[in-house]
């Protein structure tokens, strides 16, 4: 199970712009490195990240081997109404990890 770190406010005022930070532990193996025997280490990267708020996509990222290990993104969202914020990562093999927070808007 990958370690996921999220920074998201628990409460916000309607219309407020909030900052969301998301990091997942992952080597983001580029596919260019070689092991001690000189064999190429196969590429293994997280390719997609998606953040939804009240089931609507707020932010999406497509990652490439040029994205550093333990991919981190910080972005913004406009608080509209109380609801769940979901963070979903998907790797090149289709495996996915997710985390959920609830934002209370009042």
């Amino acid at each position, binding site marked *: 199970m990958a370690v996921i770190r999220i920074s998201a406010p628990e409460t916000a005022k309607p219309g407020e*712009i*909030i900052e969301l930070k998301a990091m997942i532990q992952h080597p983001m193996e*580029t596919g*260019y*490195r*070689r092991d001690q025997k000189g064999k190429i280490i196969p590429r293994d990267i997280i390719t997609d990240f998606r953040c939804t*708020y009240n089931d*609507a*996509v*707020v*932010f*999406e*990222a*497509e*990652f*490439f*081997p*040029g*994205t*550093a*290990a*333990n*991919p*981190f*993104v*910080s*972005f*913004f*969202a*406009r608080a*509209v109404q109380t609801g769940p914020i979901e963070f979903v990562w998907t790797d090149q093999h289709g495996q996915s990890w997710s985390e959920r927070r609830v934002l209370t808007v009042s």
Partner: protein
Amino acid sequence: MSRPHSHPPLWRRRAFLAAAGAAVCLTFLPLPAAAEPEDADEAIRNLFGDRPIREGKVTLKLPPIAENGNSVQLTVSVDSPMTEQDHVRKIAIISPRNPIPEIAIFNLGPYSGRAEVSTRVRLAGTQSLRVIAEMNDGSLWVGKASTYVTLAACIIG
């Protein structure tokens, strides 16, 4: 007492591996895998087509010196009110020197509230990164910033 010609075998092996590693890093990376600025242009064309790209609106914050190219923090911000009528649709970070020019592509919308994204990237050497922002009206804007990479993210490390 110094015995310059009789290092223990392990030391020699280590030194050889280190030297070999450095050599591989230096020689292999800039050859077929390394992208040329033309590759960056092609990557941009593949993403956005042949539309004109104007300079402005996009600000890229990079450290002037990156000690470790394996993880360089950057922040992109685009001058946009982020309303339904006028917002940023896509932001692409393009490297003219990495083996794959695309580093990360972000999709935003009016719900983002603010067109600002931070992330951490790998850089295979000193270079000038390009960030292209596509607005909802289809217009394209580019911002650039250079960083001096002391220790490149390379195929070995």
